């Protein structure tokens, strides 16, 4: 297990190097000279030369790459171009609201998704199953944007059940602000989750051990909840773990509409302001998180299912 873990860690190095190289080439080579943007409309050559020297842009490309590599390894990406706030500070302070939004969403999605998927898989091909398939298809066809626009207007603006937007400050509780975004995110993500989990569960229900369990005279409840669910939980856990880092960015629309100071909104604002250090830092960090969580998913896979041989 430990040997496998270290082997996988070693395998991550070339991929991580590739990510750093891709981001570097994108921003330092494709992107052109940001000094002209930073210097503003009325700039003189000295200003531009100054800015270039400050950012290290007067150095050859390989030295610039070395600087970026050191930034990644020390998690010190310098200052934001638009607010002069340290980029690592931006990242760490925006992580909290994003997680406060995502974790409840992911937990609720998994639990509700499993419960509904178990129920419809048990009565598969009945009218309930068909009706649910139809409902999920319809739900998935509507854009996330429309859910948020209508949901925010109706539940927050018209009914006034929730604050229209904002986030807790000065010791206020953020729960009040998080409920509506979490529910809207859930409304969007639950339909594909149910479909996916349903196929996982159906696959397990066709296995021989289920027939054996039934032949032993176990109750249907026990067959479904203990035997089937335990085995179906293997792909479900892998799926949940590996989807986690992507969600960090995926919730950007919710964060933007509800003015939640999270990572996703920060990325959008950074793109709007051409704040390259922030985008670079978030891209590399989220890619790292993705790799780590994929590794965790693999380890969890092996831990839950001893049949899986790690190679």
């Amino acid at each position, binding site marked *: 297990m430990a040997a496998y873990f270290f082997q996988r860690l070693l395998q991550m190095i*070339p*991929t*991580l190097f*590739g*990510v750093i*190289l*891709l*981001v570097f080439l*994108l*921003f330092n080579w*494709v*992107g052109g000279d940001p000094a002209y943007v930073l210097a503003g409309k009325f700039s003189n050559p000295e200003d531009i030369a100054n800015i270039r020297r400050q950012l290290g842009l007067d150095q050859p490309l390989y030295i610039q790459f070395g600087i970026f590599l050191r930034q990644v390894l020390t998690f010190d990406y310098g200052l934001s171009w638009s607010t002069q706030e340290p980029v690592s500070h931006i990242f760490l302070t925006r992580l909290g609201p994003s997680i406060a939004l995502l974790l409840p969403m992911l937990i609720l999605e998994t639990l509700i998704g499993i419960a509904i998927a178990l129920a419809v898989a048990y009565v598969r091909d009945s009218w309930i199953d068909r009706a649910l398939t139809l409902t999920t*298809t*319809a739900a*998935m*066809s*509507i*854009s*996330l*944007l*429309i859910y948020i*626009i*209508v949901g*925010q*207007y109706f539940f927050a*603006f018209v009914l006034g059940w929730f604050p229209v937007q904002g986030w807790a400050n000065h010791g206020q509780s953020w729960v009040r602000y998080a409920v509506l975004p979490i529910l809207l995110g859930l409304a969007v993500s639950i339909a594909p989750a149910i479909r996916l989990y349903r*196929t996982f569960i159906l696959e397990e229900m066709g296995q021989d051990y289920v027939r054996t369990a039934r032949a032993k005279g176990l109750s249907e409840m026990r067959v479904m909840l203990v035997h089937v669910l335990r085995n179906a939980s293997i792909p479900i856990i892998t799926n949940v773990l590996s989807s986690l*880092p*992507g969600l*960090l*960015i*995926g919730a*950007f*629309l919710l964060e*933007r*509409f509800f003015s939640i100071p999270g990572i996703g909104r920060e*990325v*959008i604002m*950074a*793109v*709007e302001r*051409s704040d*390259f250090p922030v*985008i*670079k830092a*978030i*891209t590399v960090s*989220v*890619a790292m998180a*993705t*790799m780590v969580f994929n590794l965790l998913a693999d380890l969890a896979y092996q831990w839950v299912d001893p049949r899986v041989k790690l190679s």
Partner: protein
Amino acid sequence: MSERIVSFAKARQAGPKSLASIAWARLCRNPLGLCSLGVVVVFLITILASALGLIAQDWDTQYAVSFAPPCWMGAKLEAIPDEVISVTSQPRSGMLDPIEMYGLKDPLQPVLDQLKDNPLQNASRGAPLLILERSPTLFLGADKWGRSVALKVIKGAETSVLVGIASALLATVIGTLLGAFAGYLGSWVDAFIEWLYGVFTAIPYLLLVFAIAAVLQQKGVFTIILILGLTGWTGVYRLIRAEYLKHKVREYVQAAQAIGASDARRMFVHILPNVSHVILVQLSQQVVNFIKAEVILSFLGFGVPVDVVSWGSILNETPNELILGYSWQLMTCGLAMAILVTAFAMFTDALRDALDPRLKS
């Protein structure tokens, strides 16, 4: 006995059936698939007509008063049927003209000169007001500037769907080529492309799209197609590589090798037609994904330029309209999107079933 011979002869005459005709026959037996295909075709014809300038060319014309409701809702109570707009400007007296004071050149001067030469303006000089006839209601309503929502949504569909199709084509071509090279050639080529795949999938898709959008300052329809196509190839690549790994050891490929077919010929003449069904289904699936991605990008303002209308830029106007109580633009655009996306997704499922019944779950 003789009947059998006749039917056999008929079958011989018809010749072997092509995959396309078999798939079409299967599709025809699937009513849901045919329905969705019909809807998709109606959309595509509308979009084609709009692209050719046959319809919705005048989407930018202000036909109605601002936020004219759809015709079945009746006219707005406070609406004035003939909106009166003043087009002549009186120089304000008693104020210093900054243009004269600092000797600056007025940047609007050429436009003002043009306006002065405008015969319409000269004609109205006697009567200084120009009266525009604008309708109080409009089929499906009007937007803030009094433009027809129906025409706007058609024009927006043209942008969104064409971007979706073009970027799906680009992504599928890249994914197929890389998948073919990695799967067929193996060794270091495979290792390199697998590394590239690892890098591209380590970064969440939309984050990568945002990063590229931040770098490419030049906005335009081609820029979005390029961004979506260059980042979206990974899914197709994964499947095509697996198919090539499977096919390259099959007998028919070995037979091709035995008669001296080159690697390129084996890859693209022999194997490619046998994996084309996978490519086609992926292409169809990608179109929907890219339409959704384009809508989100344009909504955020990273997509199409301001003078191009897309479903994303239409949706961008709707939150503020809703608060004012005007919901028709959101309804029309949302409904058009939902219908197209559902029909396209159902058609993709039907296409998958028709091309490869074994894949059916």
